[in-house]
């Protein structure tokens, strides 16, 4: 999906602010949000790609206003609600109760964990077919995204690059995030010239990103 999370090349954000001495967690709740996030796939019966998609789906205003661990907190809630572990509104109701309000909390919903079993741990997989592309091959990225999760950023679509390396095969986030299929496939490091991405006036540099076989088309 073309959400606010897809930030590559967008403008208007100002300069990079580097705080002098930064703790790992700025606030105790951020540490908790991190821990629940780290446990969220297990708690919800989902996976890492689904977790990322739960973050993608946050309203852009909240995405920007709440900060990184605010997004984690929200995504844990989304995953638990989607999987029927907690009822919609359960967290807010409990929060209001904790601050002393007289609130009726919603009953627990029917469990609704995805009907899904990973074929192995992690994201790397063995695939039997040989890679479609070799190092040095010219490839073109697809033009369009679907409304679901994807790892093909908007700024790299419809562009031509060169295969720089072949990585281990991995499950495809686009289907894995939605529990449709692991769709394990080859992943290529593809290098793009900056002028291909940003036009003739671009700073000279090379941008490399890791692209799943499904995202690529051969260049004749």
């Amino acid at each position, binding site marked *: 999906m073309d959400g606010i*999370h*897809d*930030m*590559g*090349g*967008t*403008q208007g*954000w100002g*300069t*990079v*602010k*580097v*705080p002098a001495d*930064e703790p*790992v*967690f700025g*606030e*105790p*709740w951020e540490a*908790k*949000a*991190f*821990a*629940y996030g*780290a*446990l969220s796939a297990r708690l919800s019966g989902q996976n890492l790609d689904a977790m*990322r998609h739960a973050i993608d789906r946050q*309203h852009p205003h909240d995405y*920007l206003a709440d900060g*990184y*661990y*605010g997004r984690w*907190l929200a995504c844990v*809630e989304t995953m638990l609600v989607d999987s029927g*572990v*907690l009822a919609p509104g*359960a*967290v*807010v109701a*409990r*929060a*209001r109760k*904790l*601050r002393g309000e007289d609130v009726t909390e919603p009953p627990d919903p029917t469990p609704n964990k995805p009907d899904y079993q990973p074929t192995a741990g*992690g*994201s*790397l997989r063995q695939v039997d077919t040989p890679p479609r592309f070799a190092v040095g091959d010219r490839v073109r990225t697809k033009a369009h995204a679907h409304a679901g999760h994807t*790892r*093909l*950023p908007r*700024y790299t679509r419809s562009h031509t690059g060169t295969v720089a390396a072949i*990585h281990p095969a991995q499950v495809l986030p686009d289907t894995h995030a939605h529990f449709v299929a692991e769709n394990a496939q080859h992943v290529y490091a593809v290098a793009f010239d900056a002028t291909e*991405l940003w036009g003739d006036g671009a*700073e*000279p540099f*090379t941008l*490399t*990103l*890791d*692209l799943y076989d499904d995202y690529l088309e051969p260049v004749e």
Partner: protein
Amino acid sequence: MTAITRPPDHPDAALRAEALESLLLERGLIDPKVVDGLISRYENDVGPMNGARVVAKAWTDAEYRRRLLEDGTAAIGELGYSGPQGEYIEVLENTGGVHNVVVCTLCSCYPWPVLGLPPSWYKDPAYRSRIVREPRRVLAEMGLELDDDVDIRVWDSSSEVRYLVLPERPEGTADLSEEELAALVTRDAMVGVGRVTPP
């Protein structure tokens, strides 16, 4: 446009985190010891000091350096570093003529086992948006001026591959031990937004 705001009763993040914890505990879904253990692990044990040891070893052990560049995951594993967000780590070698810098434009993927959790700037929109469009300018703003003839390579972490930058060993450090060298290596140098300076 009416301003986009959350419902007026939207509790703040600290209270929502507490509420979520209370719901999960009540249902027996989380073990407080596991939660505390996770937090403590990333506050104390997993951080850039791990990556620094990898870098210092690569600087002092040519054979290790070779293995590290060939199979980062395995060579990093030799030092005992592995775990979430470290399933497959590739090491990028900075030289006088090539400068590598790492980003994740879509979220904030980062090689946790060697660098810990990412700093705020790595997760902020300004870095994620700009480093893939005007890296030389962003690096200069962050204090890293690169010569015009340096070949800048930006790596957007869009799959489960994680990247660690192997910075250049600074001059004048021939006498330092591996441990002393490790103390010089900064997180910023291993992301590629800084260089390692001599003591």
